């Protein structure tokens, strides 16, 4: 599980690291939206340049971003191939039954590929430069207006941060239970599919039981420390919106204007 880059955070002190997590989240979602404004190579070039600039500003090695793309590479290739072989229009280079290789198809394939990679790069950048807890805090603060329509924002964010805090603990626990069951003869990696699924039972049941015990203990500890829900609670961590956050928003605004100007 060590290879999984999803949700990993790399410590650092770059420009991107120091941005307000709320700004980063807004920008990340906004970026996914403006990617769909692109429809020619100039626009893709502009967005690629923007992404590259962000990546450089984060001082994170490019190899991390490429690792972020890797788990999705089959989905990307599948989509690209579909685009390449099933889009008609322009000069036809090659034809075989329903499969056609056309100028537009190739162009579309490249565009879809770029679109995927750009979106993944940006979201990887968000998780690599923002600690999970800061993301949870940012979510709470961004969702705050939803309180008006009775969405339990505080509870959701507490759930999120407790879940994040217990991910490493439960991972440890899983490894321990697996080792304990292995030492009693359970084989997790061999046999037919049915056999393997059955082997998961001695792992899952103790894990569920222990997760529930933990939950109960945690609830008692929380209550003993005076937890009474979101009402009247103050926050230890404060997110401060700075000039650089506004500047980044303005910068993305300018990129959008550029995109609208360049697209045909």
């Amino acid at each position, binding site marked *: 599980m060590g290879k999984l880059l999803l949700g990993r955070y790399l410590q650092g002190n770059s420009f991107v690291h120091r941005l307000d997590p709320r700004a980063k989240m807004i920008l990340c979602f906004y970026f996914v939206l403006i990617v769909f404004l692109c429809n020619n190579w100039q626009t893709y070039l502009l967005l690629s340049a923007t992404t590259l600039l962000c990546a450089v500003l984060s001082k994170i090695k490019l190899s991390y971003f490429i690792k972020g793309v890797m788990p999705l590479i089959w989905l990307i290739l599948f989509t690209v191939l579909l685009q390449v072989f099933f889009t008609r229009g322009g000069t036809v280079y090659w034809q075989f039954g329903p499969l056609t290789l056309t100028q537009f198809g190739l162009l579309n394939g490249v565009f879809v590929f770029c679109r995927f990679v750009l979106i993944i790069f940006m979201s990887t950048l968000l998780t690599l430069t923002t*600690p*999970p*807890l800061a993301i949870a805090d940012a979510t709470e603060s961004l969702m705050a207006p939803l309180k008006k329509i009775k969405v339990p924002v505080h509870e959701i964010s507490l759930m999120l*941060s*407790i879940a*994040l*805090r217990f991910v*490493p*603990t439960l991972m*440890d626990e899983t490894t321990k239970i697996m080792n304990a069951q292995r030492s009693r003869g359970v084989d997790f990696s061999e046999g037919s599919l049915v056999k393997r699924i059955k082997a998961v039972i001695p792992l899952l049941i103790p894990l569920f039981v222990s997760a529930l*015990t*933990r939950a109960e*203990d*945690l609830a*008692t*500890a*929380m*209550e*003993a*420390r*005076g*937890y*009474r829900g979101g009402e*009247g*609670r*103050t*926050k*230890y*961590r*404060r997110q401060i919106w700075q000039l650089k956050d506004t500047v980044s928003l303005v910068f993305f605004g300018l990129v959008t204007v550029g995109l609208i100007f360049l697209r045909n």
Partner: protein
Amino acid sequence: MNSIIEIKDLSFSYDHEEPKKVLDQVNLTIDQGQWVALIGHNGSGKSTLAKLIDGLLTPTTGTITVAGQTLSEETVWEIRDHIGMVFQNPDNQFIGADVAGDVAFGLENRGVPYEEMHLRVKEALKAVNMEKFAAHEPVRLSGGQKQRVAIAGVLALRPQIVIFDESTSMLDPKGRQEIVALMRRLNKEEGFTVISITHDIDEASLADRIIVLDDGKVIADDAPAKIFSRGNELFKIGLDVPYPERLKHELAHLGVQVPKKYLTEKEMVDWLCQYVLKK
């Protein structure tokens, strides 16, 4: 001395149909500034008693008075402000994503303003000698360090009473010593009333007073020296005796004339030296 906790005719059972009670007619008074150890075998009702005092459970009958207030649904939150609890499993009571966040949790709940909260978290971490670890996540801490963070979380709230519910039972000997030393300091120097529930008899022997629970009843309540001089009785209800007492027992087997009175480790050393010199 002022009494800070008064328990009158307290009974409790988890299941109302069950005739056997977890706690049966318990009467206790604990004075301010005392260090009380609560011992008893597994299932004797020690942890239940601690949870009842903090209002985490509701008694079947009887009353609990903490700092002059009788525990009820209206007063439970005020009473919890007087009591800090440190539980057994260091992992399961770590609420924050990092050390500072965990210490701040109780303060956040009480709506303490931002600046004061940061000041108090810093102070509390300093008191348990964990300032350097403020930004660490729980996975990167040892069990003893996690317990120290839990104690810091309690200290930040500035309660009058700290209850340790088997807080050292999942620690290694070194972590245990550290926590016990911290308990002693809190009690002797800072004046907290400490109630420690424990299986570790050596930890209990350091307390001012020991309460022995057996099947939900208080069967002994006295100074450690007096309790441990009743060695055989303790063995009978499945409890151990402190190390000097065991040594005495072994020496008696070898035919050495040992004093009847309970000896602390230091007294034992003195006595042994005298004994050898006399020979």
